[in-house]
């Protein structure tokens, strides 16, 4: 509080600086464009060329974003549900963890690029494959976090519950699950950053444009083969925004669940 009243200048600066950095970077971008020799100029579009591509390809980009977003949401959603169920299962005993963790690791270690052709043969290219690839990318870190949360319950609280003869069911759902929320949301945040990337990569290697509409990954292939650099940059920007939307959504959820009681959101002075 006092620091804020003492240094209004500093506060203005701290609000202004990120903006100034952005302007500086755009200027630097222009400078690099100017510096390129004419035969190299096509490699780096200027900011306004990117902007123009953004408007020219608007409808296409929008539909592709919807396509990729659907895959990302579905894959992420399944990953949330199944990682939670898997976490519950793994939290049951060290024996269960010892028997299943190695195989989860194998699943995680297998490169997606190798899995993709198999998926295409199994379920065909398109939304199903994209969803499964997104799921595979998000699933593991979320399982690990959820499981860790479920087995890290304060031992005194577990004693308290046993003392009052809580059933196993009560111990899990009234104690371990709510106590695991901070871990769960950490997993969710990691998943949220991975899901849009997973969906774009999935679309790139296993997308389908048969019905005339591909996702962002498919657009990337098209634009790069046509050397449409401005459109490529615009596609990258859209992918970036999609990622931000996912992360912001999860941050909002975790704020809703945690801000009242968890120290990571402590701002109350009582």
């Amino acid at each position, binding site marked *: 509080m006092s620091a804020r009243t003492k240094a209004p200048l500093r506060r203005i600066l701290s609000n202004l600086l990120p903006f100034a950095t952005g302007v500086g970077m755009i200027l630097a971008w222009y400078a690099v464009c100017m510096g390129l020799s004419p035969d190299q100029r096509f490699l780096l579009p200027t900011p306004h060329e990117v902007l123009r591509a953004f408007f020219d390809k608007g409808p296409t980009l929008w539909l592709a974003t919807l396509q990729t977003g659907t895959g990302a949401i579905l894959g992420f959603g399944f990953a949330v549900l199944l990682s939670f169920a898997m976490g519950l299962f793994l939290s049951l005993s060290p024996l269960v963890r010892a028997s299943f963790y190695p195989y989860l690791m194998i699943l995680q270690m297998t490169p997606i690029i190798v899995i993709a052709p198999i998926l295409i043969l199994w379920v065909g290219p398109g939304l199903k494959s994209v969803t499964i690839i997104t799921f595979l990318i998000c699933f593991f870190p979320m399982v690990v976090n959820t499981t860790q949360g479920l087995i890290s319950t304060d031992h*005194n609280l577990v004693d308290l519950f046993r003392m009052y003869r809580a059933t196993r069911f009560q111990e899990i759902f009234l104690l371990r699950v709510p106590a695991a929320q901070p871990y769960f949301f950490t997993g969710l945040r990691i998943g949220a950053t991975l899901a849009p990337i997973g969906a774009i990569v999935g679309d790139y290697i296993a997308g389908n444009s048969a019905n005339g509409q591909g996702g962002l990954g498919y657009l990337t292939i098209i634009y790069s083969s046509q050397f449409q650099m401005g459109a490529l940059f615009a596609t990258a920007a859209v992918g970036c925004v999609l990622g931000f939307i996912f992360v912001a959504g999860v941050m909002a959820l975790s704020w809703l669940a945690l801000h009242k*009681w968890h*120290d990571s959101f*402590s701002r*109350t002075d009582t």
Partner: protein
Amino acid sequence: MTRDEQSPVVELRDVGKRYGDGPLILDRVSFTAARGDFVAIIGPSGCGKSTILKLICGLNPVTSGSIVVDGLEPSKALEKLAFVFQEPTLLPWLDVVRNVEVPLRLHHSDASGRAEVVRRALSLVRLADRGDFYPRQLSGGQKMRVSIARALSVSPSILLLDEPFGALDEMTRDHLNEELLAIRQEFAWTAFFVTHSVAEAVFLSNRILVLAANPGRVHDEIQVGLPYPRTAETRQSQDYQRLVAQVSGILRSVENLKA
């Protein structure tokens, strides 16, 4: 079951305890507590004070000997018992009211009666106006009060307290001791109170059990004749100070015994 005033409420007979293949924690501990007794248990660290409480409440089984709680095995007598831990052990994601009603929810008591029980328990510990606070918004003393209210919510006939005020500053501890005794005037539970503080033991209890360590065993028992109700003035009395000195002496001799 007959509720004879004279019959022991808690009886330990030659109780021994070891965890797995570990060393003997308790060796042939025997004592009986009558209804309404306030038993303080003190002794050097590692003498198994807390272990005794965990055995009485059935959280752990005895290795040898037997414990009878109100005529029952400890594990069957849980409904008569409440436990106050060393830490407040509150669920941080629940507000004060919902923390206090945790035991009631675990026992599936109906929601309408719960509110009244919780309200009464909270007013006993003078936190009626903090019902919608979360644990992190409370001071250490307030958290401990919530923990006590939670124990009282099940209307126990036996209260087990494991160094509940050990982490609090002296002033807060004294206040809570006085409050605890004031509440006890209303509900005559039998209490077992583990502590490191001789002053606290003398102030609260009518019997002090001094344990020796390695293995834990009963070394001595002191009757505290100070009349109830006891208040802050009790600490000024000569009798109180004499007892504190006497018990401190015994505790010191027990600790030398260990060395």
